[in-house]
């Protein structure tokens, strides 16, 4: 209207435009404040995560309780992100460049994250399987007095556990031979009925699906906005994308997932940015752990409790192999302590794994909702002239 209004004096037009500029600045400032707040919140939350995983922190890095906190952090960041991007937002702003490219890319990552959530959910079931095997050992070792039979029982369970932890994708015939107590004359054996073998992970996701590739795909095109772009909405989109990639990556590193060979260990994230510092520090710690494990082909994941199960399991197997009734006093106290630690770990798993699964389901639903909301806004702000097909 104003553009076509040729009436009115020159002065009038000037003053009108000045008002426009002022109001624009006002909005702009508000927006800048919102963006800064978002960044700060991200920074704070990850800083908490970092400190809680430190030596004297409450939750060990990649433990069940830490993962649950991580997932919580993600849900909070997502809520904040929606507040920044969607709430009260003029839809046309999201359809303008560079957001017209960045937002669809973000939504694409969201869809990939949904699959990761499903894979991780299945993986938690596998971890529960480890827990159950360990619990057999615990209950055997806790019997008093400790008889040969119980020790052998525990050893059998722990051996199963070790085999399961070492399992490769696909069938592993060596493990087949070891866990059958005896051979069979008839050729009816398939590896399906073998004990101790984790119900194969590869059957849970689509054939050819790879967690590693999924994470790689999610982090593709993730480039920090520069220059003029960095002061607009492109920045929170980038930040949220990075947070999402990190969270999914951490979950995949911790929980056994289909095909993690090639999981990236480096991400070009801007460590100097305030919001990214803690996250990058965490990422580097996790990467280091991952690289250590890569020397031995382990698919069991970096979950702290799993690692504990493995360490204690090995030690207790050694004890079991040299055990003879009655128990000697030497070294036995250590064994008792280890069994207690194993029991404690199982308890943490028992208490934390199911809630973790539920939280991951919640992430799943939240991601779907976010996607729907953003799509809705995009539709509104999108082209109006063509009839919808």
């Amino acid at each position: 209207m104003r553009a076509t209004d040729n009436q009115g004096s020159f002065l009038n037009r000037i003053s009108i435009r000045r008002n426009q500029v002022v109001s624009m600045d006002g909005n702009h400032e508000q927006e800048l404040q919102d963006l800064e707040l978002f960044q700060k919140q991200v920074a704070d939350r990850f800083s908490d995560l970092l400190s809680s995983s430190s030596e004297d922190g409450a939750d060990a890095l990649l433990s069940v309780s830490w993962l649950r906190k991580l997932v919580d952090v993600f849900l909070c960041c997502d809520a904040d992100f929606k507040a920044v991007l969607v709430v009260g937002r003029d839809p046309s702003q999201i359809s303008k460049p560079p957001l017209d490219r960045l937002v669809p890319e973000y939504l694409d990552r969201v869809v990939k994250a949904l699959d990761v959530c499903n894979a991780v959910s299945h993986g938690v079931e596998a971890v529960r399987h480890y827990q159950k095997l360990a619990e057999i050992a615990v209950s055997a070792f806790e019997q008093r007095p400790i008889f040969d039979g119980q020790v052998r029982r525990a050893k059998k369970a722990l051996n199963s556990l070790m085999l399961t932890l070492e399992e490769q994708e696909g069938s592993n015939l060596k493990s087949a031979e070891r866990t059958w107590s005896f051979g069979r004359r008839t050729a009816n054996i398939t590896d399906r009925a073998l004990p101790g073998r984790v119900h194969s992970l590869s059957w849970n996701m689509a054939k050819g699906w790879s967690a590693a590739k999924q994470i790689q795909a999610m982090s593709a095109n993730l480039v920090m906005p520069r220059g003029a772009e960095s002061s607009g909405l492109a920045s929170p989109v980038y930040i949220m994308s990075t947070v999402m990639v990190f969270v999914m990556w951490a979950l995949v590193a911790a929980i056994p997932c289909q095909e993690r060979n090639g999981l990236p260990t480096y991400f070009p994230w801007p460590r100097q940015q305030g919001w990214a510092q803690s996250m990058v520090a965490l990422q580097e710690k996790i990467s280091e752990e991952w690289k250590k494990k890569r020397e031995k082909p382990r698919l069991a994941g970096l979950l702290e409790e799993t690692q504990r199960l493995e360490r204690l399991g090995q030690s207790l197997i050694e004890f079991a192999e040299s055990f003879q009734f009655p128990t000697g006093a030497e070294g036995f106290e250590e064994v008792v302590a280890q069994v207690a630690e194993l029991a404690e770990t199982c308890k943490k798993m028992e208490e934390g794994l199911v809630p973790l699964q539920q939280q991951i389901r919640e992430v799943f639903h939240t991601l779907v909702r976010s996607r729907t909301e953003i799509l809705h806004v995009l539709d509104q702000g999108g082209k109006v002239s063509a009839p919808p097909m």
Partner: protein
Amino acid sequence: MEPPPEDCRIPLDAAEKIILAWDSTACEEARDRMIFESDPQEVDRYLQAVDEIQRSLSSTSLDSQSGNKVNATIKIAMARLEDEFRNILFTHTSPFETDSFTSITVDPSSSVHSSSSSSFNSATPRSPSAELGDLVDDHFGGGDLEDASRRSSYRSTSSIREIDLVPSDAIFDLRSIADRMISAGYLRECIQVYGGVRKPAIDASFRRLGIEKLSIGDIQRLEWEQLETKIRRWIRAAKLCVRVLFASEKKLCEQIFEEMGTSVDDTCFLETVKGPAFRLFSFAEAISKSRRSPEKLFKTLDLHDGLMNLIPDIDIVFESKSSESIRIQAAEILSRLAEAARGILSEFENAVLREPSRVPVPGGTIHPLTRYSGDPTTPDMEFAELEGKTPFALHLIWVIVILQFNLEGKSKHYKEAPLAHLFMMNNVHYIVQKVQGSPELREMIGDDYLKKLKGKLRQAATSYERASWMGVLHCLRDEGLSVSGSFSSGVSKTALRERFKQFNTMFEEVHRTQAAWLVPDVQVREELRISISEKLIPAYRSFLGRFRSHLESGRHSENCIKYSAEDLETAVLDFFEGNPVSQNMMRRRSH
């Protein structure tokens, strides 16, 4: 298990010997044979031996060497029993046989939820795997006769139907093993072993049923037509899974673990079935989350319906407290599907109401929105009760009303009134056709409303004719042609010539314009043309007949009378083809 009478008890050392003899880690022979495949006496002896050792454990002093020995012996026995259990279960676990392609003869009475007492007397002479195989083959149907297979599938999977997966003698053996393992405190091992055999079996069944593992990314990438096929397949497979597969697994757990401790059967069942159930439902979940668009409405409703019909059975099969999460998941997905359907409908409604395009559809043909509003394809629709059947029908009518409203608004954008009417005609006719073509839609929308629509159609046709042809036909009127008010005094040649010229010009104009307009439906096109011809040709012929002679005697007669009635008839055939005609086409002359 009742203890054997006193005189059948084996002395302790004999019992130990028996157990050690079957220790597969120590004895070569023990590895090659299975106890439970030997003769029944062997089995009995072994079990009695186990019982004896168990009994002695409670009476031995704990700290002694003999206590240790007993404990070790029990461990050996338990390891052996575990392997025996696994073997028995495995032997009777096989994926569905593919060679049983005979069509299923379903005994309707057996489709009732059977009680466990009948389990040991199952009269089916065929092996459970063959029976299940039949159901599966039936599920895929013989050839493409979807109806035939559907009918028999419905008969067999219309309610819970538990199949005895394992024959009763094997159940008996399994129970005797499980009982002893659990009493000895080896419950966990027992559960592990059970799950280890049954889980892969269910996986194999899933594969056989065509239940795919699709990632959400996969589902997004698929074309909707492909997804429709998968949805159809899923609905049938889900029925089989819940009502037969899962129900039978549950029954198996009950048969083996009944009365052996607090909800052991439940734990085993859940352990086995939780993952597969989750996988099964995640397909429906993914569909409910896919991007909404109008063509997905009816299949989404189908999926909703399919799942809704399953909910009561899901609630029965997964009735225990620990299976709560599965029930909750199914209920959640159901409401999401309803939400999705509602969302599609309301989004479409909004699109129809607000569709702001001001560019008229060229040639007045069918607007894309109209095409969308009535495109039901599946003949076997069962409509969901979103809030009840009738409100949905009303809603659909409402959408059509809005569509009409919008169409009318659009039609006003046409500069030429006749085109506007033609546009309305085309679109309303399309709707009428679609409604008439689908029995379900017709039933929902009702004949009354259909009549109203047809009335609108006729109205539009009449308006079109009036708008287009009034002017043209006006040229062929009698008034104004006579010199002094009556024909006896003669006809004004000038006026006559003017009239002919006018008629020619107007008709050419109409012809040129309306040949480029499009009426897609052949029948409507024909009817329109016939209607035009009926009004135009006789009027022209009569006009020609009456007044031609007045001009023929004079000069320039050829200038005025360009066309014969036959020319006009031919020209009318050009109308509504959607092909622009060149001016030259009308310059035919015949006498």
